[in-house]
């Protein structure tokens, strides 16, 4: 048996061969290409126009500051918060996070899959917790944050979904539920939407999200 047969069993970069002790040129450039895609994804920018929604900037001035100062990425600019309507209900925040390209590509399909007329806000240079301030300003009973996940070498377009009941400043990550790796080839938009509606039913019953709300949705067809 040749080492190349090992590739049948894993997506890990096994059986690459050798050039002396180093990676052969093709394997080296495969890695370089994947890393380049991930780097470009980190530095991509979210175009808010297609969402036709209010835009909230975080206090991070640019991408570099965003990467250096997570605290600023969690905090919206006050002047962007003031004009937001007080809608109540569920609010969706579409945020760039660590990979705007994935959100740009997949958020529209996700919003359609939700099949609900929830108000949308676009947040730029944003971390998950920016949804707490936006949700509180809009009087939301819950906030759904769709955010670009840190790109890896195998996928550079994953979207994370975070559900937070009764959003307000000071909520911790333990008070949220997360659905991750939403992308074609990962969790599909329709599966993510079904899971979100299932979580929302539980959150309404509990009046809470987070560790108290177990994400043990049954698999198979769901009742409406």
């Amino acid at each position, binding site marked *: 048996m040749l*080492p190349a047969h090992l590739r049948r*069993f894993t997506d*890990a*970069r*096994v059986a690459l061969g050798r050039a002396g002790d180093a990676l052969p040129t093709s394997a080296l450039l495969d890695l370089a290409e994947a890393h380049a895609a991930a780097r470009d994804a980190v530095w991509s920018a979210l175009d808010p126009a297609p969402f036709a929604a209010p835009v909230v900037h975080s206090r991070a001035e640019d991408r570099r500051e965003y990467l250096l100062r997570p605290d600023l990425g969690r905090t919206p600019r006050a002047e962007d918060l003031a004009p937001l309507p007080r809608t109540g209900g569920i609010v969706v925040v579409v945020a760039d996070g660590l990979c705007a390209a994935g959100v740009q590509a997949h958020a529209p399909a996700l919003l359609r899959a939700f099949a609900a007329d929830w108000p949308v806000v676009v947040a730029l240079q944003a971390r998950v917790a920016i949804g707490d301030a936006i949700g509180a300003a809009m009087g939301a009973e819950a906030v759904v944050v769709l955010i670009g996940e840190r790109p890896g070498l195998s996928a550079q377009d994953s979207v994370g979904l975070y559900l937070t009941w009764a959003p307000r400043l000071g909520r911790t990550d333990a008070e949220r539920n997360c659905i991750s790796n939403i992308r074609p080839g990962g969790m599909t938009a329709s599966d993510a939407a079904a899971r979100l509606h299932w979580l929302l039913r539980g959150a309404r019953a509990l009046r809470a999200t987070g560790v108290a709300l177990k994400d043990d949705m049954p698999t198979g067809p769901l009742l409406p």
Partner: protein
Amino acid sequence: MAFRHTIRGTTHVFADLRDLLAKATPLRSGDVLAGVAAESAQQRVAAQRALADLPLRHFLHEAVIPAEQDDVTRLILAQHDEAGFAPVSSLTVGALRDWLLAATPAQVTALARGLTPEMAAAVTKISRVGDLVAIARKCRVTTRFRSTLGGTDTLAIRLQPNHPTDDPRGVAAAILDGLLLGAGDACIGINPATDNLDAVRRLLDLLHAVITRHDIPTQGCVLCHVTTSLLAMEAGAPVDLVFQSIGGTQRTNDSFGVSLALLGEAHDAARARHPGAQVMYFETGQGSALSADAHHGVDQQTIEARAYAVARAFDPLLVNSVVGFIGPEYLFDGKQILRAGLEDHCCGKLLGLPMGVDICHTNHAEADPDDMDALLLALAAAGVTYIMGVPGGDDVMLAYQSTSFHDGLAARRLFGRAPAPEFAAWLARVGIGDGARIPAALSPALLGLS
């Protein structure tokens, strides 16, 4: 106690030892985020000069975190060995740097129990990258389980065969690939996708089967939480090494769900199963205390060195900093990761630990494989005990980039170092040559692959 130092007509004042150490630290993003970094390049040098003038004995009288608030501080004070300290007890931090650079390996190695983590951190803050390599190279730390690690001509590799869903055949394929490229003498260590006991047991059984069927002189580890390892041992699972992430303050360890007593319990349980072996494996990394809001205003490198006091209390086989994993808000770019990796290795070795480094980066850090190669070469020159071996350097479970099996081969050849002696003999016995074919003795069927 306040410190002051005047350079170029400006007097810089530092409120206490904690502030002095933080301001003397070469720039890194995590200290800026915490609000403890120097405000200018000149203030940093003033702090470094004041720190260089500070007698080492001062560290025994001023704790950066009060002992009554923190059990790591109490551990550090209890560990301090006055006899070991004697050769340098009259020196300042600056004179200690000079002493370390001039001393013999035997003298530096003998100092381990006499130094506190804060002393080690202090001396590295006024050392350059070349000094960090030269000083660490003098430290001799040997540990043993089935393989012997830390010989001056040994460079060991942890084989890291992670899989996104812990699929046993996927894990086995990566193990086989690593063995064919000479990796696995430090341990075969899997980061599990979940901390679920049944899933961990399946991986433990897989590792046990591979190691015993092929009589490989190495040790297995599933890097689950220490409480899961304790449950696995109680259930009779074949646990070799017990893993845990640790930090340099009590509250950081709280955030990891561990205490010194719990680590002691796990150490005793594993040691009872493997008498005479060193059975603990710890991971650390600058920034974990700030991430857990448990840093007490202490800079991240000093806290990292304090984590080594926790590690050495449990006589570990392996300790490594996961230097580039935590992200750019703590170590922004290749330059910061390079320096931090060498600081962590040097401090760990000075304090007597079998120190390895996970030479790694994430995609949102300003770092690339060139930066990783530079750190690998510097650490190999510094005598790093072990590095990671990941297929192609791409960890498909943890989504970060570390060193590849190939990197390990290259570093060994460039620096004239070999696998752990028992493992090198096994490689020869099994007939693993250049890895072009899988030897009959390593039949894939035995690894569960057909």
